[in-house]
């Protein structure tokens, strides 16, 4: 039904109301002409959900004005339902596999295939402009279908997706005449050449975002240079490691307007150009907010980026193996950096530099350079984290991989920075206690949840008993996402969490001694959550069946593997859904 029809409907309704009655008895005092423009300014899907619950008029006004739909779990809803409710969607965000698929815990052919969605999308929203996928299986055919069936298609973002190759990208490059965004991140694909970049037509000038940093393929530099030259609105360019420094310099000469830059290999094949030249070019990029890439960078080339660091907001050094003094040198120029990602071989000394030079820091992620390093000589310790917390009072997001930690250190850190919203600590040795006192790490996380009232996301590690979970359940009132591995002593642990944490949305658990009693204690909670993942715990098929029976609006999926006993539920994935059981489940996924 179109807008005019709706308007006449609501006008009728207004007329039928007794003109003498007060405003408050009308169902909705705003005519649609007012309501819809106002609602169209609301972007957050959570806000829009709230808006749609106010009254029927608002529900309809909202659904007509919604342009972007966010589907956090592709199996929670069917596209038919979505298309029926929202007629004017231009942009879709879809997320598929459970997060633990990033760590190889979910078989490749589990599902989350985007193709069925595309078929319905082509019918429902032929003018779709944007598609953002996370952890979906995307084949070359799907990409080709996308490229050829949506004439207005503009923006494609693939985060942690797999299943496609360069052929699919060629299709996108060839057919999407109005492409503004092609953003490919963290994908598990093996691309063997195939120069997709050359497939962009000479007529394409609208590109604003191009990110192919995670692809291994060699692209034609010639084609890339021409593309960058003619796309004057390009603001995000992230190249892959095959682009060297000389080539990068040429690109930057054409695109000084970039706001986000991902470099390639930060070395020259032959020393063709003095460092000063390169430095000047970087200096001309006055709008840079983000720098990433920086593969192979060393002390010689480090100064090149200093001119660009001044206004930098996000510095991603997670591909650059810098040593502590090199990091310090860079950070001296990065006074306004808010987000910093580094590798742990910068060491505690490097983190001291962070604390010294980055007072505005809000987010720090320290990745392990060698996650499987058994020697444990390199890396960061608790003192590095303390230094950062002392120098960066605004820190609210931490992802920290380390080999050792103490309860006291964590308590100090949260005292220094009580504003934590995301606290993800990964002590890489399984079941490691406080290395000074040999006690479990319960008190550390207890301190976190007690001291940080805004905590939304928590990942725990180390030796943990049920006490940790008692603290979490009791104090973490705003917690939305919790990741647990190799922790807990008994069912009580999970029961505490399920009994508390009123805002819990995503719970992922692996290798904990939580059994059926614990699972069933959260019966009524699961419908208020997006999903629950439990693998290698003590769940049995019977327990899962009971859950499935009691809660018909949940999909209780058990992934069987041949080695586990028939009664065991080795991997369980539970999520709320209005779409019923999956129709595309592979044979090893049983929906109970």
């Amino acid at each position: 039904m179109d807008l005019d029809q709706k308007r006449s409907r609501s006008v009728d309704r207004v007329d039928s109301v007794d003109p003498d009655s007060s405003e408050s008895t009308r169902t909705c005092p705003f005519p649609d002409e007012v309501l819809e423009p106002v609602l169209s300014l609301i972007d957050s899907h959570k806000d829009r959900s709230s808006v749609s619950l106010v009254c029927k008029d608002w529900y309809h006004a909202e659904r007509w004005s919604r342009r972007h739909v966010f589907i956090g779990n592709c199996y929670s809803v069917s596209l038919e339902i979505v298309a029926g409710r929202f007629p004017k969607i231009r942009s879709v965000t879809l997320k598929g596999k459970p997060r633990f698929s990033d760590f190889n815990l979910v078989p490749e052919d589990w599902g989350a295939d985007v193709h069925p969605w595309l078929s319905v999308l082509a019918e429902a929203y032929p003018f779709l402009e944007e598609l953002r996928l996370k952890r979906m299986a995307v084949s070359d055919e799907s990409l080709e279908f996308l490229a050829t069936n949506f004439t207005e298609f503009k923006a494609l973002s693939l985060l942690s997706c797999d299943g496609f190759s360069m052929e699919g990208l060629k299709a996108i490059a060839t057919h999407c005449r109005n492409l503004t965004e092609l953003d490919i991140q963290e994908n598990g694909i093996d691309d063997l050449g195939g120069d997709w970049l050359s497939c962009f037509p000479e007529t394409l000038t609208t590109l604003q975002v191009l990110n192919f940093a995670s692809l291994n393929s060699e692209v034609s530099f010639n084609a890339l240079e021409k593309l960058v030259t003619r796309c004057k609105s390009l603001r995000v360019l992230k190249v892959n490691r095959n682009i060297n420094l000389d080539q990068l310099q040429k690109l930057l000469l054409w695109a000084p307007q970039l706001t986000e830059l991902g470099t390639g290999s930060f070395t020259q094949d032959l020393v063709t150009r003095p460092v000063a030249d390169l430095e000047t070019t970087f200096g001309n990029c006055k709008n840079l907010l983000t720098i990433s890439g920086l593969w192979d960078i060393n002390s010689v080339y480090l100064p090149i980026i200093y001119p660009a660091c001044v206004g930098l907001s996000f510095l991603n050094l997670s591909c650059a193996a810098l040593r502590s003094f090199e990091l310090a040198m860079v950070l001296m120029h990065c006074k306004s950096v808010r987000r910093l990602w580094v590798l742990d071989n910068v060491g505690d000394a490097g983190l001291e530099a962070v604390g010294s030079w980055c007072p505005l820091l809000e987010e720090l992620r320290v990745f392990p350079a060698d996650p499987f390093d058994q020697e444990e000589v390199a890396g960061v310790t608790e003192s590095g984290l303390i230094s950062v917390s002392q120098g960066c009072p605004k820190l609210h997001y931490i992802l920290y991989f380390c080999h050792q930690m103490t309860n006291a250190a964590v308590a100090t850190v949260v005292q220094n920075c009580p504003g934590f919203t995301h606290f993800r600590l990964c002590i890489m040795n399984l079941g490691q206690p406080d290395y000074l006192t040999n006690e479990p790490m319960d008190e550390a996380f207890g301190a976190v949840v007690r001291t940080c009232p805004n905590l939304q996301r928590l990942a725990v590690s180390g030796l943990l008993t049920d006490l940790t979970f008692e603290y979490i359940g009791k104090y973490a009132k705003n917690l939305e996402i919790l990741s647990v591995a190799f922790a807990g002593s008994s069912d009580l642990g999970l029961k505490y969490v399920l009994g508390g944490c009123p805002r819990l949305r995503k719970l992922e658990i692996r290798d904990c001694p939580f059994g059926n009693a614990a699972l069933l204690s959260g019966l009524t909670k699961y419908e208020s959550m997006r999903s629950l993942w439990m693998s290698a715990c003590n769940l049995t098929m019977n327990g899962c069946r009971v859950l499935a029976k009691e809660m018909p609006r949940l999909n209780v999926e058990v992934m069987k593997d041949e080695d586990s006993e028939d009664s065991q539920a080795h991997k369980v994935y539970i999520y709320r859904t209005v779409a019923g059981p999956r129709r595309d489940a592979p044979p090893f996924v049983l929906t109970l």
Partner: protein
Amino acid sequence: MDVTLGLLDQLPSSDGGGGVPSGGSTTMRSILTGSKSKEDNNKNTMVVSTEVTSSYPAVVDDESLDGLELGLGLSIGGGGLKSKTAVTGGWSQYARILTAKDFPTTLVSEPNNSCSSSSSVNIPNSSASGTKRTATDSVSPPNGTSVVGWPPVSKAHRMPNLANQMKSPTENFISKSEQNKSKNRTVGIKDYSDERNGTANKKYRSVKVNMDGTLIGRKVDLNAHTSYEMLAQTLHEMFFSKWPSKEAVKPSRLLDGTSEFVLTYEDKDGDWMLVGDVPWEMFISSVKRLRIMKNSESNELASRCEENSERYRD
């Protein structure tokens, strides 16, 4: 060291870390069950001693775990011989990850002594030895780590050692899927591997194999083969077992370039070469992964090789 190698030789492993198709596994299992009774005790001891000193090189070969596991009477995490999730391999009784359960100072009590409980803290996911579907479980954990998916570092953030900071893009990422221009969408096995295995660990050399046109990637243990012919035979069993009569894919023809398919490999420098040109020893020391290409593409490969070498000449 020798012991471990010996163990592996026992098992004609085609698939160190990956799923084994039903055809292959029956062969495997019969060998394993046959040998377990007499050999297990010895093997276990021997393997255990290597396990303790080295860093789980044999873990990656799930078939060997099968054999060991069945032989040991496991008391930790379940006495069930059948339950593979209880303990994932005989060695784990002696050498497994220390977990919360091991620390005497903790309040943790050992909750599970039954088969049905997955005292998965040991090696939960690699328990899928020989499992076809949860291929994820059979990812050969890299040296030193016995647990799949731990530490929880996603693909994009796995860096090579500092020493390997060469401009070789494929070395950086531990790739998860092996789809190269594949058109078929079959529900099948997906093979995972950690590229580090191929380069770091000489006792167990498993490399990924992909064939054009199939989604299913496989893994081959190179140390279990002694010649190109053996390798071709294994690959033939893996990929062409369904085409017994097809002349074009006889094992021998894979190597000589007369069949529809050509066997190629990626070497240490990231270049793709035809298999069979160099001596076997040299081959296995430099190969990183294998690909069975359709013949038309091998011409493209040849020309691209030339192109690459020209580029670097500038």
